[in-house]
C-alpha cells in the first residue's frame, strides 16, 4: 500500500499531493475505519445481549401481533446488514434512541451529563500536567537522587492503586475525618440551581455569573475527585517526561549548550524541555483521553452526575440504548483524542515523516 502510494506520488511529481493530500486522505480513511469499527462492535454488543428489546417495550403479555408490530417499528425484522446501516445513519444524526431509565432521548441525556465529566477530567489533567512535568524533568536531571526515587514511587503507586478505592480513602480521610472538602456530588443541596447553566460546568458557570459562593462550594466538591483522578495522569506524565528528558539530556546539543556557558536553567527548561514539547502534548492528550474514561469509577464513588455514572446506572437497569450511546460517545472522543495526538506528532516532528 505504502509503496503504491509512493509510486503514484513520484510519477505525478507533485510534492503538495505527496506531502499533504495523500497523508490527509489516509488519515481520514483510518479515522473512518476506526469509527466504523467502534460502531460495529457496539452494534454487535447490542445484538448479542440476552435482553429482548421488543419484550422490554411491549411487555410479557403482549399479543403476537403487537409484538410483531413493535419489532417492525424497531426495524428488527430487516436483515442484519441493513440494520447496521440504519444504525450508522442514526448515530451520524446523533440519534441513540430513547433511554428506558430517564424516558429522554439518550443524546439529550448525554448532552446534560457530559459537562460534569469534562469539568472533572479537565481539572484532573491540569493537576497532572502542572505537577507531573516538573517532577519528571527534575527526576531526569537529578537521576538517582531522592526526588527521582519519589517520582518512581509516585508512578508505581499510581499504576497499582485501584482508583475507586483511592477515592473511598480520600473521602474517608479528607471529608469524613478532616472535613476539609465538600462531600459527594457537585454542590451542597442549598447551592443547587442558583446559577444558570450555560456551559454545564459549574465552576465556569458560577464564575461567569460572578457568584463566588457557589464557585467556592463547587470547588470544595470537585477538588478531591479531580486531584485523585489527576494523580493517575501525574503518574503517567511524570514517567514519560522523565524518559523523554533523559533522551534529550544525553544528546550532543545539550553538551554544546553547556560548553557555550549557558546557564543550566536555560539548558534544561528552554532547550531540552523545548525539544520534547511535541511528545509531551501527545502524552497529555492520551492521558486526557484516559481520564475521561477513568472517571467512570471515580464518578460512582463521588456521586458525580457525569457520563460514567450515567452509563453505570443504565447498565444496572439494562437500559441498553443508554449504555451503547454512552459507549459510542466516550469511544468517539477517545478515538479523536488519540488521532489528534498522532497527528500533532506527525505534524510537528520532522523525523516522523
Amino acid at each position, binding site marked *: *500500500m505504502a509503496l503504491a502510494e509512493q509510486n503514484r506520488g513520484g510519477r505525478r511529481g507533485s510534492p503538495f499531493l505527496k506531502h499533504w493530500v495523500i497523508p490527509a486522505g489516509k488519515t481520514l480513511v*483510518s479515522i473512518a*475505519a*476506526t469509527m466504523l*469499527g*467502534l460502531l460495529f*462492535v*457496539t452494534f454487535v*454488543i*447490542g445484538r*448479542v*445481549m*440476552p435482553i429482548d428489546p421488543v419484550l422490554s417495550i411491549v411487555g410479557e403479555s403482549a399479543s403476537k401481533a403487537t409484538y410483531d408490530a413493535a419489532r417492525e417499528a424497531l426495524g428488527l425484522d430487516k436483515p442484519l446488514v441493513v440494520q447496521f446501516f440504519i444504525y450508522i445513519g442514526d448515530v451520524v444524526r446523533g440519534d441513540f434512541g430513547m433511554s428506558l431509565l430517564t424516558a429522554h432521548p439518550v443524546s439529550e441525556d448525554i448532552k446534560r451529563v457530559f459537562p460534569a465529566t469534562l469539568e472533572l477530567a479537565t481539572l484532573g489533567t491540569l493537576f497532572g500536567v502542572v505537577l507531573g512535568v516538573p517532577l519528571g524533568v527534575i527526576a531526569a536531571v537529578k537521576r538517582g537522587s531522592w526526588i527521582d526515587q519519589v517520582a518512581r514511587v509516585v*508512578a*508505581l*503507586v499510581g*499504576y*497499582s*492503586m*485501584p*482508583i*475507586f*478505592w483511592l477515592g*473511598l*480513602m480520600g*473521602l*474517608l480521610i479528607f*471529608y*469524613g475525618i478532616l472535613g476539609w472538602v465538600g462531600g459527594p456530588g457537585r454542590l451542597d443541596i442549598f447551592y443547587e440551581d442558583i446559577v444558570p447553566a450555560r456551559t454545564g460546568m459549574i465552576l465556569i458557570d458560577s464564575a461567569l455569573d460572578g457568584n463566588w459562593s457557589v464557585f467556592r462550594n463547587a470547588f470544595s466538591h470537585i477538588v478531591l475527585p479531580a486531584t485523585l483522578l489527576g494523580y493517575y495522569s501525574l503518574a503517567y506524565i511524570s*514517567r514519560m517526561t522523565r*524518559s523523554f528528558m*533523559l533522551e534529550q539530556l544525553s544528546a550532543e546539543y545539550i553538551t554544546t549548550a553547556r560548553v557555550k556557558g549557558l546557564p543550566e536553567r536555560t539548558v534544561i527548561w528552554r532547550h531540552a524541555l523545548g525539544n520534547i514539547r511535541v511528545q509531551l502534548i501527545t502524552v497529555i492528550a492520551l492521558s486526557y*483521553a484516559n481520564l*475521561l*474514561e*477513568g472517571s*467512570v*469509577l471515580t464518578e*460512582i*464513588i463521588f456521586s458525580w452526575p457525569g457520563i460514567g455514572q450515567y*452509563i*453505570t446506572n443504565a*447498565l*444496572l437497569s*439494562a437500559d*441498553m440504548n443508554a*449504555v*451503547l450511546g*454512552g*459507549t459510542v460517545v*466516550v*469511544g468517539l472522543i*477517545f*478515538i479523536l483524542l*488519540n*488521532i489528534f495526538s498522532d497527528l500533532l506528532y506527525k505534524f510537528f516532528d520532522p523525523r516522523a515523516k
Partner: protein
Amino acid sequence: MSVSEPHKESWREWLMTDAPHSRGQARAAAWYHGWLTFRGNAMAMAGLIILVGLLLVAAFAPWLAPQDPFTQDLAGRLQPPGSEGHLLGTDSLGRDILSRLIYGSRITLYIVLLVALIAPGAGLLVGTIAGYAGGWIDVVLMRITDIFLAFPRLVLALAFVAALGAGIENAVLAISLTAWPPYARIARAETLTIRSSDYISAVKLQGAGPLRIIIKHIWPLCISSLIVRVTLDMAGVILAAAGLGFLGLGAQPPSPEWGAMISEGRKFILDHWWVATMPGLAIFTVSLAFNLLGDGLRDVLDPKSGDQG
C-alpha cells in the same frame, strides 16, 4: 551431564561454566544467569516474594483461613480489626474479613491466569499470522488491531459485560477482548524481524510449511517479550477486574471477590472504615507486586528497553 568421572564441581560451577557440554547445560546456565541478574534487583524480588506468597495463600486457603468465609454472624457484625477472633474485623453480615480476603485470592488468581492465557494467546495468533503472511492479510488484521487499540478499554468492557451478563467468566472475556491488541503488535514486530532471518530460510529449504514455521520456530521466540508485557499488564487486569467487581458486574455476592468486597464496604466507609479498606490494600499489594516483577523481568529478558518506564 555428559562428564561421567567424579568431580568436585559444584552446581554453581557447573552452571557458570563458559563451555557447556550439552544443550541442557547451556539452557540451564542461561536461566541461572538471568536469575542472578533478577536476584540483584531488590524491588523485583519483593514482587516475586509477594506473588509466591499469594500463590501459597490461595493454595492453602482452607487451612489458613481462621473461619469460613461465608458463615454469617449478625450478632458480631462490623467488628473492628483486632477484635476477638477477627484479626481484620468483620463485615456487615458478620463474616470474617481476613478469611474472605484469603479465599478471594483464589478468585484474583483465577482471573489473572485466564486473562494471561487468553489475551496474549489471541494476540500471538493474530500477530504472527499477520507478520508471517504479509500482504492484504497483514493489512486487514493490523487494521482490526489498531481499531481495537483505539477503543476505551474499561467502557468497552462494561458494555461487553452488560451484553453478556455479569459474572467472573464474562468479566474475563470482556477484559481479554480489550487486552489482546498490544500483544498482536508485539508478536507481529517480532515476527517481521524473525521472518527474514537465515534459519527460517534454512527450515523452509528443509520443507517446513508455514504452520510448522509459525508454531515451532516463531512462537518460541516471541514468548519472552510477551511474558514481560503480560506481567506488566497483569496489574491493569487486576484493577480492571476489581473495577468490574466493584460495579457489581464481575463476581457476584456472596463471592469474596476483592472488588465486590470494597463495594459492600462502601456504604459503611465513614463509620466502619475497615470493611472497604482491607480488600483495597490486598488489591494494591498484588498489583504493586506485578508491577515490580514486570519491571524486573523487563530488565532481565529485554535489556534494550531498560530505561523506558
